[in-house]
């Protein structure tokens, strides 16, 4: 009897609470690498999510709904899959979000497919997810490696004259291997004649690149392509500089080489004239939108963003826009329709262009700007930033169905 009374009492207290709680909270379950080498990307994404949420809530969502983002450190694919399942079945999240590592992205997209829950990938770049491993509930808010490599091939064709010999160094795992495959495919398609004089596969997080640097010097390519990211890039550039590597060949690093963290870590040690790019630049385009985004980030965190932040920022705006179009977040198929073809203004969009979601592959289609390193101390602690940008039109980079067919043949569905 006592139990029944206390139960009724609890119900009596809770029912009015739930009735008075009028506006809905839409949960987004995010997974990011928050510790270790990739931790910086997770932290930047978290900060960008907060900025985007403020903007979304200021503008408002249908029925006064609010977005709530839960972030968990993703650790490894097995753990990430179990967290993603928990987000869906226990936390009742309407969206899965984020993820730095492509391996984890590939595992989680299967969860999204199985549970029919939309997954917005914000940072992992493996082309597979919007090509051979495409599934209708997956969308990506940042460029894939193919887009960078296609733009890179165009740069190599049009901007660099008189080169023939090319060498590649990249981490020995899918990300490194894929970039090289994509660049060669794109060069072949553009009819560029080249000779590969060396391929080097150091381990990810390799601390000493000396043996590779001497081998590269000996092979003497005209162009050295690098496919590393983060601290590996910093270590490689620092170690290669005393050997004079950058005076003897063109250094070309267009997927993650121009990420702000590299400029911040190298400071004055960054050589001049390296050909780099990234999925977002803090100093390009010089539009009010990009300036505002970078300043907001700086104000919130006291540092400038890496490219991971833009993916997360755009991802939240994509979700908000889709909810506005549909009116709620309860029908994933309607949300998929709303997201397909959606135009979304990103900080990296130059004047006159708005990024959009390709309806067939669910990949965001954005321009790629490739530049060379020049002195610029407006974004401390960096002493160099990119300049002399060459901009490659978004629609020439993606979708490329010929490549999708090729990758499907090589890697399977």
């Amino acid at each position, binding site marked *: 009897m006592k139990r029944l009374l206390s139960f009724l009492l609890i119900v009596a207290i809770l029912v009015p609470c739930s009735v008075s709680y009028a506006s809905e909270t839409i949960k987004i379950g995010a997974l990011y690498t928050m510790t270790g080498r990739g931790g910086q990307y997770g932290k930047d994404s978290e900060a960008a999510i907060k900025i985007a949420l403020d903007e979304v809530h200021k503008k408002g969502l249908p029925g006064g709904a609010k977005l709530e983002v839960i972030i968990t450190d993703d650790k490894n694919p097995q753990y990430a899959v*179990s967290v993603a399942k928990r987000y869906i079945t226990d936390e009742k999240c309407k969206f899965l979000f984020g993820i730095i590592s492509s391996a984890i992205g590939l595992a989680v997209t299967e969860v999204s497919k199985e549970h029919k829950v939309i997954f917005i990938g914000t940072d992992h770049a493996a082309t597979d997810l919007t090509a051979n491993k495409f599934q209708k509930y997956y969308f990506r808010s940042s460029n894939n490696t193919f887009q960078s490599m296609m733009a890179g091939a165009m740069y190599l064709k049009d901007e660099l004259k008189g080169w023939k010999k090319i060498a590649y160094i990249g981490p020995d795992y899918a990300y490194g291997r894929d970039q090289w495959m994509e660049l060669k495919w794109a060069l072949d398609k553009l009819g560029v004649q080249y000779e590969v004089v060396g391929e080097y596969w150091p381990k990810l997080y390799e601390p000493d690149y000396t043996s590779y640097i001497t081998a590269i010097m000996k092979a003497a390519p005209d162009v050295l392509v690098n496919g590393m990211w983060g601290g590996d890039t910093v270590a490689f550039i620092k170690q290669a500089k005393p050997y004079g590597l950058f005076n003897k060949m063109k250094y070309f690093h267009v997927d993650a080489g121009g990420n702000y963290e590299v400029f911040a870590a190298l400071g004055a040690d960054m050589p001049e004239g390296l050909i780099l790019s990234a999925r977002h630049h803090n100093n390009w385009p010089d539009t009010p939108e990009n300036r505002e985004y970078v300043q907001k980030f700086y104000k919130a965190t006291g540092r400038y963003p890496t490219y991971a932040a833009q993916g997360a920022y755009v991802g939240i705006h994509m979700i908000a826009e889709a909810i506005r179009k549909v009116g709620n977040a309860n029908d994933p198929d309607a949300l998929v329709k709303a997201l397909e073809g959606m135009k979304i203004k990103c900080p990296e969009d130059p004047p006159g262009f708005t990024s959009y979601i390709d309806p067939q592959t669910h990949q965001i289609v954005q321009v790629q700007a490739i530049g060379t390193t020049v002195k610029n101390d407006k974004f401390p602690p960096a002493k160099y930033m990119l300049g002399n940008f060459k901009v490659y039109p978004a629609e020439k980079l993606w979708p490329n169905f010929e490549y999708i067919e090729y990758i499907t043949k090589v890697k399977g569905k």
Partner: protein
Amino acid sequence: MRKIKDYLPWIIYFIFFIGLLIINPGPHYIHLAARIIIYGLYAVAFNLIYGTTGLVSFGHALFYGIGAYVTGMLVKASTPELFYLYILIGAFGAAFISFFIGLLTLRLTGIYFTMLTLAFAQLVWGLTFKLYHFTGGDDGIQAIAKPTLLAGGVTKYYLFSFVVVTISIYILWRIKRSPFGSVLSGIRQNPQRITFLGLNVYKNQLKAFIISAFFAGIAGGLYAGLDGSIHPDMLHWPTSGNAILMATIGGMSTFFGPVVGAGILTGLEEIVGKYTEYWSFYIGIVVLIVVLLFPNGVLGIKKFTGSKNIEEKEKEVVCNTGN
């Protein structure tokens, strides 16, 4: 009376894992229980080598991973309907590899054995990572389909895992209580005496190593079906370390201790990971507490109060002294 006491852990085991189905706390918790039960088998299989025989293998992830990869790759290459058979093939594959690794590593004792098992496991992990076109490299293999019977909600797969794990654990339990199991305990406690009794320590250790690898392979195969994705992390050293942690936390001298350890470690990871990114720090604290305060593991707590039996008295004998 003694009989009931002997079967008490089994009764609790059944009440807990079947009871969970009756309560039905939702798909997430059923999935969590499936993970616990699969890790539980992995840890119990490992404990045959560790707690029973007294060999600290730091390479058991290799057998767990082989089970997972063989199952996953065969399903991808053919049909998911033969999934059950592939789990068995994976387990036999793990046992086959363990025969050769055991032949080489069991010649050594103590830290040398541990390091060599670690080296072999890391070697295979490295291969899995690098044979990009064969194993999918660090991307792993995704979309491993379940057979029609197990497709759909997680409850069916949980039930299937429960049956397979229970049969496997029962076999391991019988092995531990068999004369062969007594020989293994003897090897842990005093290998010289086993030799004097006319028994071959090396051969018996090898047998235990192969049996342990076989059941670790089954656990790996089951995990491949649970999430439908596998990854080189399953072969990496932290997975081997997890087996040691689970057995140590739960109680390496008890049969069901590793299952309890698997529950604690997986549950902690789940709960702590929900609230902080520094989950490993808290797990480290729990491990420290267990190791410092309950050196016999959670299931070994009662032993502080009760009188020591022969096994406990002999436990002080240094593990894995070899022959």
